[in-house]
Structures are given as C-alpha cells and as structure tokens.
C-alpha cells in the first residue's frame, strides 16, 4: 500500500499563499527494530521527497530513520499560475512513487 494523500486548496486566487500537505503510507522501517521472534527487521525507508510546481522546485527533503512512519510534510507556495504540482518519493527496495495534482488559479 503506497497511497498518497495530497491536500491543496481547490481554487486558490492568483498570488495567494497556499499550504500543501502530503501524507504517504510507508512504515519507515528503521532497521533498529526487532520483531517478535527476535530478528532485526531490515531497514526500508523513503529517502527523498520532492515537490515541483510546473517543474520548479518548491521543497526537497532528505529523510532519515527519525522521520515518523507514514511521512507527512506541510509547506507553502504562492499560487502564481494554473499548473501542476508534482510530488516524487524515492526510497529503499526500489520504492518510487509520483503523484501530480493540478492547481487551477482563479
């Protein structure tokens, strides 16, 4: 399960500062946990997250095991033009996910 929940205002006004909230399902297994049989659960993390607005960077994040499971980020951009927000998550064991959300600026 690697669904992502992305929350942006539906129809922001031009020039309005908007908050972008993203949440993705991922256990962010640290590699330090031990399971019920005593075996170390192998590390498996999301390592990197980026958000671009029409190809320009809004935010990039480098994640370490101290980031909580089901990583959440909230950050801000100015709604300049109608366009596309692109979100990319990359991590261990080939984890890769891209989501795009259209912004319609009024």
């Amino acid at each position, binding site marked *: 399960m690697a669904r992502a929940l992305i929350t942006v205002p539906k129809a922001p006004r031009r020039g309005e500062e908007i908050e972008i909230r993203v949440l*993705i399902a991922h256990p962010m297994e640290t590699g330090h946990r031990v399971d019920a049989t005593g075996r170390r659960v192998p590390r498996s993390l999301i390592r990197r997250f980026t958000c671009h607005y029409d190809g320009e960077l809004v935010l990039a994040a480098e994640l370490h095991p101290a980031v909580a499971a089901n990583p959440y980020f909230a950050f801000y951009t100015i709604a300049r033009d109608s366009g596309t927000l692109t979100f990319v998550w990359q991590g261990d064991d080939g984890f890769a996910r891209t989501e795009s959300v259209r912004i319609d600026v009024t």
Partner: protein
Amino acid sequence: MSRRTRGACRGTRALPTGRRGDAVAIVASVIAGCAAALVFSGARADTSGPGTAAVSAAAPEVSAGVRRSGLEDLQPATRAMQLDDGQNPGMLWVIEGESAWARRPDPAAPSCADCHDDARRTMRGVAARYPAFDAGLARPVDLGQRIDLCRTRHQGTAPFGPETAPRLQLEAFVAHQSRGLPIAPPDDARLAEFRARGALQYRTRMGQLDLACADCHDRNAGRRLGGSLIPQGHPTGYPIYRLEWQAAGSLQRRLRGCLTGVRAQPHAYDAVEAVELQLHLMRRAAGMPIETPAVRP
C-alpha cells in the same frame, strides 16, 4: 491486601540491552509501582468452587452524562492530527479501502460495489450497529469478520484474515461512512447472552496484574497511571491509527494489547470472546459518535 506481590510485573521477555533496555527497565518498575499504588476500595466478590474468577464489585458504570471519548484527552497536536483529514494517517487506510471497494477479487466475482453500490449511502450506519449476529455462524461477528465472510460466501474467494492490511482498509472505509453517527447497538435478542458474557469479562480480574477492565476504565478513568491518562476506553474510532503501532489497527488488536498489558492471555483473533467484549463496549458507548479513523497514542 497482599495483592502487591501478585501485581509485580516481571513479564516474559528478557530486558533488551542498550538504551532501550534502560527505558524498559524504567517502565517495568513503573508498572509494579503503579499496580501497588492502585488501591481498590469495595469488597471483592466472594467466589468459591472451581473455575470461578475473581470479579470486582460492580464499579459504577460510566454514566452517559460523563462519558468522554479519548479525542477530548489528546494533546492539541494529536487532536489536530485526527480532526484534519489531510494529516490523519488513518485516512491512508480509508482511501485504500475506497479503491478496494470497487475492485473485483477476480473477473468472475463481484466487487463490494457490485452488490453494495455506493458505500456512502449503503454503508452509512453499518459500523454503528456492529458487532452483529451472524445466523450462519450462530454467533456475533465484528465488521472485519463480516468483510471476510462476504469474501468467502459472496465473492467466492479466500478471506483476508484478521488484522491484514486489506481487511483493515475495507473496515476503515466502511466504518468511516458512519463517522459522526451515534453508536447504535442493535436490539437483537440473539446478542443478549453474548453481550452479558462480555459484560462479565469486563468486570473479571485477570492476568498477573489481577486487574479487571472496570478497575481502570470505570473506577480510575481520568486519573493517571505512570504519567498516562487512563481513558474510559470507548471504541468510537476503530480502526484507529495508533501512534504506538505507527499503523492502523482493529479494536481486537487494541483489546489484545490491553490483555497483554495486564499480563493476561489475549483472546485469539476472531474468537467469540473477543467479540463478546466488543458487544459490551459498544453498548457502554451507545450514543457516542463514531470517529473513524481516530488517532490515539
């Protein structure tokens, strides 16, 4: 009362080494200390004969006027996490369940939607009246079990199994359709004997710590145990996203955790005893609004 020595929690696991070991050592002593500090007033039921368990003298049930959902006792940041769908981790399970609702397990089998159409309409109120009696099994089942029964009886496919991701996702999606609706245990005479056994379980002392649910969650709800607030324990938001689990989980999982916490044998998943206790808890919470997906520590 010589309950102190029986209350001492030794647990069954060796203390791990390192930093976390220090943390566990502190907790073990806190539990022992707290068990000793919980002085229960009221006479214990005088039990005799084989197979009888010690039952706490009937603690005053939490009356409708003073019932509190755990939501009210969360720290502001955690409460904000639940009340904002954009940051509620439990919503990840709900949206996954939403897409599973429309998915056929195989081309020849119906999806949930094929029989139940739009869940927003047809599943509204369902979680509020579960557990429900299942005629086929002649016993009550909870919502997760009901989903698995649909899989085998109506979709011709294998059940997901208790506490599996797909079952939790569908359970979260279905229960979410009742968010805001009051818990409404069904008026079904067939449930009476099961619910009564659940009520008895709730008052029965158990485990190495020799505590009944009522001892903490009725008698001492609102007070503190080892720095944590003791909740009343109403099942208003299941499946919950529990910060301790870093995942969503069912009421069954939570109750197994409670039983382990008092060092009693937890119920097997989907066992009738597990559902009996749920029946009692839902009756105790009747009228409180469903919050699924709730966020809890």
